[in-house]
């Protein structure tokens, strides 16, 4: 028998003591503490940061049993549809096209296995209330449904007319140029047999894959000097037969198609369910319709819109906080939360100012994130300068020095210009005078310090009177 060294005994004893002490500190879940419950499903495989971070409302579920007859196997299928916290609005810059879209999670349960699909429902027009549309009962829905697999891959595109699925496209390949694709009825019947499907031989419409090119246009003293191509994306939609030129309108990039055309950037802003049908959404929609928001965001950055921007209401903000902009770690998602507790008591212009203020923060964050956290003095001299000079509150320092008149101008347009420019600029100072740092010291912005006492008094008076 091999002899053991006394040191080995000592080490083993110490290890035993260590394990014993660790064991004493452990508490089994469910005994002395309650752990938060964990959702059993996530979209972590999705590349799209918005979809990756969506939340599923497991309590809001609609269930149907699917008949086995239309399927290749004989098992019964249970379909469950869950709501998500995502909805959105597809908007074109010229305000001609705008439609509400919604996302649902579909669980297809057969025997003991579940398969999940994320559904993106895009209506043909904006007259339908998307909050009431269920994929399991599409009623009068006409439009396109994108079906994503758990892996994030686009699995299928479906075309509907008045709740009846007329076309099903399962092989999705980006096209180099916009091209019509003949619609066809699925050869094995409907994908899930509880659906109404056309039994005809197709011809109800066609799928059109269109290409979106994003450019940044560069100007010197209002003179167009060139463009940089940013990215190309493809989008497939179902177009019913009989859609005529009169139903369509054209979009061109400006100045690519001549200065007379408006820009055709496709913007997808995500609204959390908490934001929907609130005063905040109403104010936001007014800002978008008047084009104020986009035009003034463009003023401080030629690249727009703010990427992956999500609006929500939060009831966890303190009573002194009107809004908060935050970056979700590990993603390109930037969330803007307005204070749900104080919203009802605030004027619409106050809410508009907060939204615009937070969008500027979001844009500054976007610049940092998209430049991999290293900002060049050549590309963004303002951000470089203020982050170099101020380790605390750099964004507020920059906004106080350079964006008061921009915010003021935006508020003037939003309000119908019923007050003087000075008045709107004064209101814009709200939130830009200073903040307490983590050590409890009040740090006022340099631009605020440089104002005369008369100006400060007038600004504080106008802000106070406006509330």
């Amino acid at each position: 028998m091999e002899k053991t060294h006394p040191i080995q005994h000592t080490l083993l004893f110490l290890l035993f003591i260590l394990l014993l002490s660790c064991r004493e500190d452990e508490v089994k879940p469910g005994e002395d503490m309650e752990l938060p419950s964990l959702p059993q499903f996530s979209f972590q495989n999705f590349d799209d940061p918005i979809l990756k971070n969506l939340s599923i409302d497991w309590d809001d579920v609609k269930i149907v049993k699917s008949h086995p007859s239309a399927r290749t196997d004989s098992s019964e299928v249970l379909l469950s549809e869950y709501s998500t916290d995502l909805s959105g609005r597809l908007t074109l810059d010229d305000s001609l096209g705008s439609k509400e879209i919604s996302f649902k999670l579909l669980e297809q349960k057969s025997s003991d296995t579940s398969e999940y699909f994320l559904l993106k429902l895009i209506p043909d027009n904006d007259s339908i209330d998307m909050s009431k549309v269920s994929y399991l009962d599409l009623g009068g829905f006409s439009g396109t449904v994108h079906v994503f697999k758990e892996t994030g891959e686009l699995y299928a595109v479906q075309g509907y007319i008045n709740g009846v699925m007329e076309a099903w496209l399962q092989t999705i390949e980006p096209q180099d140029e916009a091209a019509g694709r003949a619609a066809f009825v699925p050869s094995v019947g409907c994908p899930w047999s509880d659906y109404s499907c056309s039994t005809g031989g197709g011809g109800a419409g066609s799928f059109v894959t269109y290409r979106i090119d994003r450019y940044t246009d560069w100007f010197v003293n209002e003179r167009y000097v060139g463009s940089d191509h940013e990215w190309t994306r493809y989008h497939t939609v179902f177009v019913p037969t009989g859609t005529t030129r009169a139903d369509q309108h054209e979009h061109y990039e400006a100045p690519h198609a001549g200065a007379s055309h408006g820009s055709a950037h496709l913007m997808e802003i995500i609204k959390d369910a908490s934001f929907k049908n609130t005063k905040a959404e109403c104010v936001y929609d007014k800002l978008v319709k008047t084009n104020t928001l986009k035009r003034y965001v463009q003023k401080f950055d030629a690249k727009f819109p703010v990427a992956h921007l999500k609006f929500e209401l939060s009831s966890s903000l303190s009573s002194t906080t009107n809004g908060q902009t935050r970056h979700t770690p590990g993603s390109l998602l930037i969330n803007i939360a307005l204070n749900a507790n104080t919203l009802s008591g605030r004027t619409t212009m106050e809410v508009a100012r907060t939204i615009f203020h937070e969008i500027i923060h979001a844009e500054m964050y976007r610049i940092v994130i998209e430049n991999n956290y290293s900002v060049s003095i050549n590309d963004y001299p303002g951000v470089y300068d203020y982050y170099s000079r101020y380790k605390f509150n750099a964004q507020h320092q920059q906004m106080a020095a350079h964006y008061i008149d921009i915010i003021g101008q935006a508020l003037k347009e939003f309000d119908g210009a019923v007050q003087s420019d000075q008045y709107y600029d004064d209101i814009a100072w709200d939130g830009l005078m200073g903040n307490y740092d983590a050590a409890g010291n009040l740090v006022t912005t340099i631009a605020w310090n440089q104002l005369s006492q008369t100006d400060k008094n007038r600004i504080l008076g106008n802000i106070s009177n406006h509330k």
Partner: protein
Amino acid sequence: MPLKKMCILFFLWPLASLGQIENQEFNIVFYKSDSVCKTTDSGGLTTVLIEKYRKHQNTKTGIISFYICDELFEYNPKLNVIDSIKSSAFKDIDVFSLGSLYKKYIEAQEALNSYASNTIRILFKNEFNNIWLYEQVTTNLYIRYQVQWIENIE
């Protein structure tokens, strides 16, 4: 030390600083107390006292938001670890105050940009990825949450 080595060390210093804050463990106590902290009122510079420690749980996602003054720390059940320790073990833990954590953040930013350059490396708070927040639940027990310090602004 040879000049070449000094130059290498000089240029690697920012990377070392980032690695330091990424790996260093920061322990913060979330007290259930009536402590307050100063903030400004909405619309001016009047000092207002707000509850220092505020906790909010999203019942749908399970995410718990811990506010200490205006700084936000989040526990995400999908990403973070949760466990517990006995109070007796707590005395051996090196605890940071919010002020001292923030000081580390400022120092790390300065270290990352310690030499003149045409680019500035901007440090986001979530790059501190080893932060633990302790919440006392009974006399003898603390829950220990791994949290993310959220980059946010009002």
